[in-house]
């Protein structure tokens, strides 16, 4: 079927032509009808009389419909004999006969049976009440109120089972883990689906454009995404235009970011005392005392502005928006800017044909601070060295072989820009009432550019206060890199939906095809002048020019099927099957089959439940599903030849050579995750209390993981990717929400969600335990992923205390009388001789917890009183450990120490057991570096005031709200470092080396609607 895949562009054109043909027919057809009348009105909350936005107003028996604007107003055309259906999530549906009225105001009553809402389930929608898998919906406005870049960050604490690990770094997305970590190497990120387009990154999406986020958590819900569903699926639906008059909305906020917590280093005197004690050489504190972190950290300005226009007619609706976001970050020289545009259009050609597009453009511009060197250097650099005087830098490297952190940042200019176009278009044909055909195409174009310039400077007095040292760059250099990717998807779906008496049946069948291509190119030259207008490759020395380039391409082809069955709104059944073919696997393992089944029972629909008054809705459900994960590099199973390993026989220009440096597994296959889920959903006490409890048990097997192989096999990086491990995550999720009113003017809500998760490696399939998480030269690994332990568990020496006297050293003996640490001195750590062999080595390491949390939770509360609204969200994480890698990296006797170490250190007679005497670093990996990762914090607090409508009517503004918001106001944590939120791969996560600190943000904001 070359026609299908190679000629898709042609096909699309044909489809468009068909649309136009339909459109003209429809206009002709309507021309024969009597003209309908226009009806306007306002929909309000029956209790508060506040206008309700987003309410659907539909002409009964037709496809004509609209949605109310921000103030609850609507406008629709209908016959004077028509009936309007007014419906909204959380409210009871109303049917109103027009009877010639041109103004209809509707007051909606709250529906306590809140499970009637409709949710997105992947390639379709379903009533929440009918869903048999574990899903959760978060409203866009909940996310948009936070002054953060991505919707992913805003999700933190909002949903049970969804763990978000923040990153404070401007322009970056946080790590998302849904129901634990169930893969190691194959990509842990959840799949994002933006208006039908599959992607791994949503940092291009303006949060203000989002209507809803639906998170599919269990395998029965994600199985419709087959080989991409294993890490959970996050479906993002962006705003659509609503019929009626045009509305314009502005929303914006501006404020400051600052580090949420700092690490205090020793000052010059404390440092001099410590180092003198450690080295035996007297160090003079001098007159300078530099706070190196203080030199590279600042308060950054952040702003976010968005403008949207929304409106439409019965035939066409539009939603257009523009957004501008800048974030300076908290490190000097750092700034991120993002500009976004969106156009969403929907066209109703007739009762039978609909089409639409949803397109977004984003431009990101990131001035990146060179943290990798700077953070480590700031930790180690001696405070007795001045930071900078005028244009000259303090010379730390001549003193202690550590770079000046300010210089690390200022002598490097790293700018990344990207342009991204992500969009989709659909065509719906509904030839008969119970059948919908949909063809949907999505495209994701990304063009990324990186420009890195390193300034020329020497270690002389031109650049430094004192000359010498190793920090210098004799030749300036410039690197340009361009990466272009294009990812298209094409879905063709048919949905049959029919009610037979008490049987409701919906069947979906479809096919999808997708292709991803990437082209990379880079160029490099030295001796590029320092003036920024000359930072182009052509200005450099041509004799130093090098370039490189590569590419990637993969395809997928899938078949999907789903049956939703509902008997009498009582018994629910869902079954799905997806067959996925991926070019990333060898042909014999190419196809994977991912089935799921779920069942639900709406108890409140049973006659025996009719007499009880407590539950409005009570639903039990159970499901099972199998999903996969194929996120591995395309070259994972094929032996490739590494080129350009050259050798210059006889000198001069070298002869190119090559080598086969990697062992590959020719039998790679899918990772497979099977998950069972049991859940209870309820709404009680007239909707005031609602909640959900889920138990899940998720077993992932054939996990792609890098297994270390002995170096004798010659594998250059010592690891081979293979299907080795199995990981189990099981847990309990609890969500409870309470909403109530104190008086008619004061309403409040309180919500809580908590997730208990137990992560465990349940099999390595004969593979070896995975050692990872190396920190510096002396701690080659700090974690071990092994049977029965959480993935990436810290595996270190057990500190028993500090040797107080020489006698204690001499008396610390093994059973056979061997002195265990003969070279130790008083003040050194006493390590446990775990295996009792009379010496301390790697065989004495013990498991010391992991970064996998035992539980995480969110709490949120809100209060409205007349025009005032207040909300506060908490987020917390307990039961995990972090590794203080920056402390472990301390490796030189002139390196600085934390103030707490300088004061808390052991000294003779002090009796201190938890902090060694003054030392030169280079300590082995031990429990000393493992600290509690638990924390709880106030994630967001917002206070808003909505100006009274009466005031606004005069100035023809429909709504104004001002607010103050604060992100991360307070964090309570045990960890002594910058942040306990640390990203990384599953086998080395939770190690703080160069982590960008979590930040606090305080901002003022304004929303105006016209």
């Amino acid at each position, binding site marked *: 079927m070359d026609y299908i895949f190679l000629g898709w562009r042609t096909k699309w054109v044909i489809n468009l032509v068909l649309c136009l043909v339909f459109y003209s027919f429809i206009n002709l057809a309507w021309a024969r009808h009597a003209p309908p009348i226009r009806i306007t009105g306002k929909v309000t909350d029956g209790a508060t009389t506040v206008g309700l936005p987003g309410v659907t107003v539909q002409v009964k028996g037709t496809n004509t419909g609209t949605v109310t604007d921000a103030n609850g107003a609507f406008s629709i055309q209908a016959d004077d004999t028509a009936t309007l259906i007014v419906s909204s999530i959380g409210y009871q549906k109303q049917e109103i006969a027009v009877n010639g009225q041109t103004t209809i105001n509707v007051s909606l009553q709250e529906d306590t049976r809140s499970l009637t809402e409709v949710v997105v389930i992947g390639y379709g929608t379903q009533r929440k009440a009918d869903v048999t898998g574990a899903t959760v919906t978060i409203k866009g406005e909940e996310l948009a109120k936070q002054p953060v870049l991505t919707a992913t960050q805003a999700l933190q604490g909002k949903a049970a089972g969804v763990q978000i690990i923040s990153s404070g770094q401007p322009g970056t997305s946080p790590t998302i883990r849904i129901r634990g970590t169930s893969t190691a190497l194959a990509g842990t990120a959840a799949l994002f689906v933006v208006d039908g387009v599959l992607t791994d990154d949503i940092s291009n999406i303006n949060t203000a454009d989002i209507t809803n986020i639906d998170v599919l958590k269990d395998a029965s819900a994600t199985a419709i995404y087959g080989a991409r569903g294993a890490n959970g699926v996050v479906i993002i639906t962006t705003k659509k235009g609503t019929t009626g008059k045009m509305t314009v909305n502005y929303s914006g906020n501006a404020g400051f970011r600052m580090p949420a917590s700092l690490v205090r280093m020793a000052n010059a005197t404390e440092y001099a005392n410590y180092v003198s004690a450690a080295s035996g050489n007297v160090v003079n504190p001098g007159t300078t005392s530099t706070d190196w972190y203080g030199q590279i950290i600042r308060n950054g300005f952040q702003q976010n502005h968005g403008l949207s226009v929304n409106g439409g007619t019965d035939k066409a609706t539009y939603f257009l928006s523009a957004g501008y976001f800048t974030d300076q970050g908290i490190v000097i020289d750092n700034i991120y800017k993002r500009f976004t545009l969106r156009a969403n259009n929907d066209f109703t050609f007739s009762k039978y044909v609909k089409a639409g597009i949803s397109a977004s453009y984003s431009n990101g511009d990131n001035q990146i601070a060179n943290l990798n060197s700077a953070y480590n250097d700031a930790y180690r650099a001696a405070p007795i060295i001045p930071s900078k005087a005028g244009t000259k830098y303090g010379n730390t490297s001549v003193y202690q072989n550590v770079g000046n952190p300010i210089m690390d940042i200022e002598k490097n200019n790293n700018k990344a820009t990207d342009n991204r176009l992500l969009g989709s278009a659909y065509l719906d044909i509904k030839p008969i009432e119970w059948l919908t055909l949909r063809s949907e195409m999505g495209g994701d174009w990304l063009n990324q550019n990186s420009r890195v310039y390193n300034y020329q400077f020497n270690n*002389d007095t031109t650049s430094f206060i004192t000359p010498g040292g190793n920090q210098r760059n004799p030749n300036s250099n410039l690197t340009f890199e361009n990466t272009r990717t294009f990812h298209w998807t094409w879905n063709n779906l048919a949905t049959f939906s029919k009610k037979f008496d008490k049987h409701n049946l919906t069947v979906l069948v479809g096919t999808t095809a997708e292709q991803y291509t990437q082209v990379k190119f880079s160029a490099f030259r030295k001796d590029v002048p320092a003036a920024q207008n000359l930072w182009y490759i052509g200005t450099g020395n041509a004799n130093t020019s090098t370039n490189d380039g590569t590419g990637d391409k993969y395809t997928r082809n899938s078949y999907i099927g789903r049956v939703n069955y509902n008997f009498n709104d009582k018994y629910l059944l869902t079954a799905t099957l997806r067959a996925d073919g991926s070019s990333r696997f060898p042909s014999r393992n190419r196809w994977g089959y991912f089935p799921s089944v779920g069942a639900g029972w709406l108890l409140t629909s049973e006659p025996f439940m009719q007499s009880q008054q407590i539950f409005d809705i009570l639903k039990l459900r159970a499901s099972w599903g199998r999903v996969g994960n194929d996120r591995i590099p395309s070259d994972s199973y094929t032996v490739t030849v590494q080129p350009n390993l050259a050798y210059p026989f006889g000198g001069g220009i070298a002869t190119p050579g090559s080598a086969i440096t990697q062992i590959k597994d020719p039998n790679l296959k899918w990772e497979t995750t099977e998950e069972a889920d049991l859940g209870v959903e309820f709404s009680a006490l007239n909707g005031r209390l609602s909640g959900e409890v889920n138990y899940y048990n998720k077993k992932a097997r054939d996990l792609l993981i890098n*297994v270390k192989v002995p170096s004798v096999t010659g594998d250059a990086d010592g690891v081979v990717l293979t299907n080795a491990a199995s990981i189990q995550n099981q847990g309990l999720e609890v969500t409870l929400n309470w909403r109530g009113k104190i008086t008619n003017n004061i309403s409040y809500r309180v919500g809580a969600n908590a997730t208990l998760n137990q992560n465990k490696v349940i099999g390595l399939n004969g593979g*070896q335990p995975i*050692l990872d998480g190396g920190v510096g030269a002396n701690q080659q690994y700090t974690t071990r992923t092994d049977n029965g332990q959480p993935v990436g568990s810290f595996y270190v020496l057990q500190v028993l205390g500090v040797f107080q006297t020489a006698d204690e050293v001499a008396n610390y003996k093994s059973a056979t009388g061997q002195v265990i640490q003969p070279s130790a001195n008083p003040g050194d750590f006493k390590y446990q001789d775990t295996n009792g062999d009379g010496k301390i080595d790697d065989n004495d390491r013990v498991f010391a917890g992991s970064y996998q949390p035992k539980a995480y939770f969110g709490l949120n509360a809100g209060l409205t009183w007349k025009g005032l609204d207040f909300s506060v969200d908490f987020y917390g994480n307990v039961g995990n450990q972090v590794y203080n890698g920056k402390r472990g990296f301390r490796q030189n006797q002139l390196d600085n120490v934390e103030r707490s170490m300088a004061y808390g250190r052991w000294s003779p007679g002090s009796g201190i057991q938890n902090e060694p005497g003054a030392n030169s670093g280079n300590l*082995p990996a031990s429990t000393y570096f493992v600290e509690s990762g638990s924390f709880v914090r106030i994630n967001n607090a917002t206070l808003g005031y909505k100006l009274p409508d009466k005031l606004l009517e005069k100035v023809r503004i429909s709504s104004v709200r001002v607010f103050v918001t604060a992100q991360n106001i307070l964090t309570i944590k045990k960890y002594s470092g910058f942040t306990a939120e640390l990203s990384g791969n599953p086998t080395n996560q939770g190690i703080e080396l160069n982590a960008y600190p979590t930040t606090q943000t305080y901002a003022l904001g304004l929303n105006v609607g016209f």
Partner: protein
Amino acid sequence: MKRTTYISLSIGFTAVLLTASCQKSFLDVPIQGQATTATDPNLAVNLVTGVYNSLYNSEAFGGAGGDIHGISFIAATNIISDDADKGSFDGDQPSLKDIDNFTTTPTNNFVAALWNGYYSGIARANQALAALQTASIDASTKSRLMGEVRFIRGYYYFNLVRFFGKVPKVVRVPNDAQDANTDPAFQTRAPVDTIYNVITQDLQYAISNLPLRAQAGAGHANKGAAQALLAKTYLYRKNWQQVQALTQEVINSGQYALLPDYSIIWRYAGNNSSESIFETQSGTFNNGDIAVGGYCTWQGPRVGGKGGWTDLGFGFDTPSADLVNAYESGDKRKPATIIFIDTSPQHKGTVLYDGFRIPSADSVQNLYYNYKAYASENPNVEPYLGNRDKKQKNVRLLRYADVLLMAAEASNELGQSAQAITYLNMVRNRAGLTATKAASQTDLKQAIWKERRIELAMEHDRFFDLVRTGRAAQVMQAAGKNFVAGKNELLPVPSLQIQLSGGQLDQNPGY
């Protein structure tokens, strides 16, 4: 527009949409941007060049490829010996200090890098040999290329067996990870004799299949190189007849001669000279320098004290006072081997042969540096494109003076002292010294050993020589080092490798 029209249109539409069956070729996507063994037309020849490229391996901090001739090699041959100290400042790189002081533990990253580096080089050799077996190239080219590869593999095993004693015998490519993790050959150490057999067989194959130096092309392994290396192997096995026979062949081949000026040997001017038997090559690739990574930087003179100058490196592997004092007066090799930092009150500094001036001791970290590892900063003197870590230095691995001294030692052991004295004096004369006064077999043996130390000072031979001749404990203890006889002759097997073998790799005694 009739509803039936929609229906019929829809049926056609549906047919198109839903018949999207999988065309097999849609999912057959070749790997982009990377050649495979099937798509590389010159695979075998390229792989052989890749084996030579492994001579550059020099990543000592856990990176891919490990270390063959970088700082780990420098540490395990020079720093460990009485010829050199760790250098730099005291607290810099404690793991190197451990090697210097014989307090090395099985977790030492430099030792681990050596194990990784040599086995990654051996794997490249095994890959190349496997590809050559099936390559469609003419038989004589094929056997020559195989000879070159087996020479390098033999050299790698020779270093491995001297570093670690028993090591795994790996002479084939593992099929996959399972094979790599289950075949005992990959998991257990073969006896020293077995490893020496591998070396002997590889080098004998190379001798039979490689041309003489004149025909081989500069930088390539050749017959003379294989003979010299095999002679050296036999030297360690005390097979004096073989040492004598092989060195005679090299000497009589007419391919080699001592350079008149000792100081030229390690400079660009002495690259691939008549004295050179085998050395790593250096040059340029992709508009950059290409050579053993960090060889000159790790050993380059380092700023210290008052500072104020752009130094040449990190200042490791500094010649020891013991070596400085070991030279006879008037030995031309002393100023050619050691950079002496000026300690005079006049602060004149030290001017190197190319005019580069190193300030006096108050601005420099150490007092002595390895002159043989100096590569000129001036691109007009020695080619240099500015990559300090890849300064174009050919590391001399085998040279003619070594062959002469091996010949002398074998002759002496076989009772042919006149012959021994002749060879010994060839080396001494070039150094500007008078003929040896040693006469008895015992004295002559000591004289030859002493000459080896001086002639090959800082050339990665001394420590192995001490162990070979059974003097390591006595000499190192005399030098004040905590050398434990029966332990410190060998390095520890890296603990990570023992763990990865599931404990099947055994540790060397004492560790």
